């Protein structure tokens, strides 16, 4: 039997040379006449260790990282195929504290398995949730999801089971399942990791939803900035179809369900659910006025379940282990686990899946190890471009839906971006407006015009013109946009802007800005 070596094919790992490492290992093995099977996996989400190469041992997988192509010969010399010692040896990967301290329900398999092997997926516990769902009545599946407390992982936090129940109760000749993989928030990459590392989990989750509501067609809307994820996920769909997991018969049952991957075209607003439906219909990605809700009149006017990828990916675990087991994780009304994504100026950036409720400090300090630059943390943005900036003084805020709302922020898709003390928060506030202006779909006036006026007004504040008046104007504008916008793009841009103003007001004073620049 040849030795098995695992090298991630995840695009973050590729971005630091994983392909070259895989080639170097193959070359070195051939030169030495050693038989090696190289398995391309997803990433474990410990990105500062990428490319993280793993080998099988009797006690589990032993890791080496970050590996450079030039390390290949020395690794063979050190006997790494048998877990031999080398300066880049990390020990058992499962025992690396960053990973060992996590509660991985959704990401249990990511980085471990060959993402395109349905046998590997099964061998690591895959398809058990779907098998149980096939034995249940549709309403029991909905009940299970409701009882689990699962809430939408895209940001709004709406109870997933209630949504499924609404679609299940509508009579229609055609229903759809739509998976939102338009992961546009900066600082988020969980969907991408799943598509590249454990795509069958998403497929299984969508299949469970199709059984619950009686849908026979699903779409996954993937952003075009993720070409590699689109490619892997599309191939995973082919594999799942060939294996009879989806298609004319769902794992041999009479229920038919097929999934199609669709590519976005570079519009942030298409992450908004109704805008996404328009885009899937081949139209401009303009937001729809609600009601009607997509559950009643969604894609092509038919009842549609539209959920974030992480919501679907949570369903198989819930079905397999039961809603009560899931609800044991988390706090209050934020139940289960959240894959947090640690990014920006942080030493140990990566995927940290934990039960709801850790503090921001635990994430950025205990896991993240502080800033990569070594300077003090000044601001942490949670929840993407429409999330609030938290000052260092608020790092003890808990990460659950309610606590974040109380603190004037939102959890969003779980992205956490760290900034050190060189950040200019007036610039960040300006960027929030400018990004909103660039990505506004144009349907409603507060967002379309307010975003541009907001950026101009911040420019005047930065230039020191009528500070008091212009700050009051920005606050007023934020109120109008919050109350008057059709969707979250215009409706939430006040969070980054006002949190910057409230917590970092000194950055909006010209004299202090000049002083800071002169230092």
């Amino acid at each position: 039997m040849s030795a098995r070596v695992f090298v991630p094919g995840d695009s973050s790992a590729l971005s630091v040379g994983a392909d070259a490492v895989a080639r170097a290992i193959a070359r070195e093995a051939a030169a030495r006449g050693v038989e090696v099977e190289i398995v391309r996996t997803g990433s474990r989400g410990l990105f500062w260790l990428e490319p993280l190469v793993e080998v099988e041992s009797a006690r589990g997988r032993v890791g080496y990282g970050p590996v450079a192509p030039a390390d290949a010969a020395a690794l063979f010399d050190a006997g790494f195929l048998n877990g031999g010692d080398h300066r880049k040896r990390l020990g058992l990967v499962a025992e690396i504290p960053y990973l060992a301290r996590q509660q991985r329900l959704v990401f249990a398999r990511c980085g471990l398995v060959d993402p395109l092997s349905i046998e590997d997926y099964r061998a690591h516990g895959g398809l058990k949730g779907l098998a149980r769902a096939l034995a249940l009545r549709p309403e029991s599946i909905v009940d299970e999801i409701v009882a689990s407390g699962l809430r939408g992982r895209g940001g709004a936090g709406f109870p997933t089971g209630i949504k499924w129940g609404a679609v299940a109760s509508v009579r229609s000749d055609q229903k759809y399942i739509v998976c939102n993989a338009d992961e546009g928030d900066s600082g988020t990459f969980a969907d991408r990791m799943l598509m590249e590392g454990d795509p069958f989990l998403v497929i299984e989750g969508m299949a469970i939803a199709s059984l619950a509501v009686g849908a026979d067609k699903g779409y996954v809307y993937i952003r075009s900035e993720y070409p590699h994820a689109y490619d892997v996920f599309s191939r995973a769909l082919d594999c799942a179809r060939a294996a009879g997991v989806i298609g004319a018969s769902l794992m041999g049952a009479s229920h038919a369900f097929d999934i199609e991957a669709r590519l976005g075209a570079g519009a942030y607003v298409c992450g908004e659910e109704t805008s996404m439906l328009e885009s899937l219909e081949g139209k401009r990605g303009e937001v729809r006025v609600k009601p009607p809700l997509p559950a009643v009149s969604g894609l092509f006017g038919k009842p549609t379940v539209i959920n974030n990828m992480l919501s679907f990916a949570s369903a198989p675990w819930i079905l397999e282990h039961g809603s009560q087991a899931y609800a044991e994780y988390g706090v209050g009304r934020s139940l289960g686990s959240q894959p947090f994504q640690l990014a920006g100026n942080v030493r140990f950036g990566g995927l940290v899946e934990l039960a709801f409720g850790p503090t921001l400090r635990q994430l950025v300090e205990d896991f993240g190890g502080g800033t990569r630059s070594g300077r003090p943390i000044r601001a942490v943005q949670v929840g993407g471009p429409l999330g609030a900036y938290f000052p260092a003084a608020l790092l003890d805020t808990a990460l659950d839906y309610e606590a974040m709302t109380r603190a004037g922020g939102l959890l969003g898709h779980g992205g956490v971006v760290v900034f050190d003390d060189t950040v200019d928060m007036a610039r960040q506030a300006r960027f929030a407006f400018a990004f909103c202006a660039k990505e506004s779909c144009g349907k409603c006036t507060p967002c379309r015009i307010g975003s541009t006026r907001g950026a101009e007004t911040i420019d005047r504040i930065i230039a020191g013109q009528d500070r008091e008046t212009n700050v009051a104007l920005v606050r007023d504008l934020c109120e109008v946009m919050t109350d008057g916008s059709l969707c979250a793009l215009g409706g939430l841009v006040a969070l980054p802007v006002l949190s910057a103003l409230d917590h970092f007001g000194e950055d909006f004073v010209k004299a202090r800005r000049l002083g800071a620049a002169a230092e």
Partner: protein
Amino acid sequence: MAAAAAFDAQLARDIVDRRKSVPGALLPILHDLQTAFGYVDDAAIPILAESLNLSKAEVLGVVSFYHDFRRAPAHGRVLRLCRAESCQALGCEDLVAHLAERHGLAPDAQADSRGLRIESVYCLGNCALSPAALIDGEPVGRLDRDALDRLVAGADRGPV
């Protein structure tokens, strides 16, 4: 990446016909056209309108809505540089300034004589290894000035 072909109305019609019966076909077809030709030619608009039973204005409205669809041929190499918050936290704007000052390259302008184009992009999902970019579709993490200098120096040698 395969070199894009010159626009050809018959080929465009074939591409449209292949997928025109798919529900919500316009976006997938526009992607196919851009893959084949590198951009969406104005001459493709009436072909799309006729095949999909839409007005030319509706088709144009969709083409112009999405940042991805180019309206003119794009030559040379492309660096898609992320300029969103996570990359800002690690100095992507310094990299933009460096490209302008050292190499005279501005983001979102036409390709210069070296055949290199810089496109702004907002998040590539490689935020734990910011600053991030895609060079001709290939991901690059922890981008720095040296990597940019090497890229610019090698730009006229074609894809590496």
